[in-house]
């Protein structure tokens, strides 16, 4: 059971969308938000779950937490069917919604924790231990007596994460845990999650738009688009599959016609500055050497592909492939 701690077998979620087409006329249409999704997550894994907006990420998380009932397929978390035993599952999972705090706005932070203590019936000793640990690692000590409304976004996020962990959840779902946070807060949150996973063996599933979250935390990444799993594996592999490109930004001494250095191609020119896209797999050093030999360089920098672009290209590639298959058959 530890290998398929979270288990999805051809899970589907179909929504009926009603659209107004006339004064009283409505058109019904089904939208397949999650389409025959299958994967398993082992206990103690830390998985990034990414995809463009509307790809089905939130719907998946909502089914995993028991908020939504799947339309088809089989789904188990720690052996529990989330939609049937929502409250039983709730005692064993922790959920952090990045943009919706569950803390009590007008009360000191500690009051939210005391409520969790009683609502989850956490034994006194466990509560003390967990709280002390979270306070130490998330640096909440001085914030405990501060009303939540006075906390900064980063402080509140740390507070929310602690609140989700006091009852020793076996799995933690994080929906955009670093959204809107500054660099320091991000690194604190990431450091804490890494430690939590390493020491407690808590299974972590996180959705994010920030590639760095994945890079620094997750050994495994799943990409979903149009409700289907597009990729499941290591982050490095994603770049290859997605045929992603890195960008070389070159500052020349003066304005010049676009640089020629195939396979790299100029994607943008702004005065003496030019942007070149080249395959992520190609060595930047070799490209820089070639350009330096022929052009007067002042400065340059290499930009890694951003995840949205990788996913976008991946999806575009997917359709191209589909069409190619259609053309053949």
């Amino acid at each position, binding site marked *: 059971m530890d290998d398929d701690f979270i288990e999805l077998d051809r899970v589907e979620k179909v*929504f009926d969308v009603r659209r107004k087409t006339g004064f009283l006329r409505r058109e019904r249409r089904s939208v397949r938000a999650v389409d025959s999704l299958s994967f398993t997550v082992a206990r103690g894994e830390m998985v990034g779950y990414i995809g463009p907006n509307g790809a089905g990420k939130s719907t998946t998380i909502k089914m995993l937490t028991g908020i939504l009932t799947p339309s088809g397929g089989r789904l188990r978390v720690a052996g529990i069917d989330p939609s049937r035993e929502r409250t039983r599952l709730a005692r064993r999972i922790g959920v952090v*919604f990045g943009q919706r705090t569950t803390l009590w706005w007008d009360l000191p932070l500690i009051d939210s924790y005391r409520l969790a203590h009683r*609502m989850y019936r956490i034994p006194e000793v466990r509560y003390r231990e967990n709280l002390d640990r979270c306070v130490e690692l998330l640096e909440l000590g001085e914030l405990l007596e501060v009303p939540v409304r006075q906390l900064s976004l980063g402080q509140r996020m740390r507070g929310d994460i602690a609140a989700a962990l006091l009852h020793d959840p076996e799995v933690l779902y994080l929906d955009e845990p670093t959204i809107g946070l500054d660099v320091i807060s991000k690194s604190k949150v990431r450091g804490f999650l890494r430690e939590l996973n390493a020491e407690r063996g808590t299974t972590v599933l996180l959705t994010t738009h920030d590639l760095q979250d994945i890079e620094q935390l997750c050994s495994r990444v799943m990409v979903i688009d149009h409700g289907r799993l597009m990729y499941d594996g290591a982050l490095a592999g994603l770049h290859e599959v997605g045929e992603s490109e890195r960008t070389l930004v070159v500052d020349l001494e003066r304005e010049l016609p676009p640089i020629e250095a195939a396979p790299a191609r100029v994607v943008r020119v702004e005065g003496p500055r030019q942007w070149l896209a080249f395959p992520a797999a190609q060595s930047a050093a070799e490209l820089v050497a070639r350009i330096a030999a022929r052009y007067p360089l002042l400065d340059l920098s290499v930009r890694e592909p951003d995840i949205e672009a990788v996913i976008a290209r991946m999806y575009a590639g997917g359709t191209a492939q589909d069409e190619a298959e259609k053309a053949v058959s």
Partner: protein
Amino acid sequence: MVDAGARWAAEEVPGGRVREGVRAYFLIAGMWIRSTMAYRTSFVLMTVTNFATTALDFVAILLMFSRVDALGGYSLQQVAFLYGVSSTTFGLADMVIGSMERLGRRVRDGTLDTLLVRPAPVLAQMAADQFALRRLGRTGQGALVLTWALLRLDIDWTPLRVLLMPVMLVSGCAIFCAVFIAGAAFQFVAQDAAEVQNAFTYGGTTLLQYPPTVFATELLRGVTYVLPLAFVNWLPATYVLGLPYPLGLPEWAAFLSPLVAAGCVGLAGLAWRAGLRSYRSTGS
């Protein structure tokens, strides 16, 4: 390091869902009371305002009686009796679960989901949401008017009439609670229906503050047989006051209030379950 075996595992709790719901309700309501106490002056002002604004309803009745001696055959004291029961029961229901009318908003902004990941029934969490002790203002005001009416009225107290008083108050409160729950359940389907709900809750209590004799028979039938608000006070109160109920129902109908209340709560509970199930399958 916590492994599966060492888990302290608070699984399902003895006593079941109802007990767990009530427990969660008090925990959350307690948090809201503490939240309001963070702004103590504001709380006092709001309670006084609540008392005063609801009292204006009764002032309107007093003004009417400065021109007439009776309303639909009811004296001022008798109308005050109806008013007192209606306001007290509604005020209590409104305080206990009135915030359920915020359900539509929670569905729209997605915060209902945060309740669904907690180990407590959503109904209890929703009922305790935004618990406002200041709503005691309305109940207190209603109770005052009711006390005044009881002191001034010359009621022929039989054991049955005495018994009917607490039965009426509890049943009335339960009927209003059922209306709140059913209204909230409807908001799963139509998220902007809070106003429709208000027509039945606030509208209902205002209706019941007046004697049944001033309304048209069709309306009376509606609130007796369809949405049985008449069982909150009209039917039991006419029995206590020794007045005839306009629809010519037998006398024992006054004692049906607890049954009607139980039926209403049962139906509202079913509606709530259906609503929540539909939310969990559609996500909206």
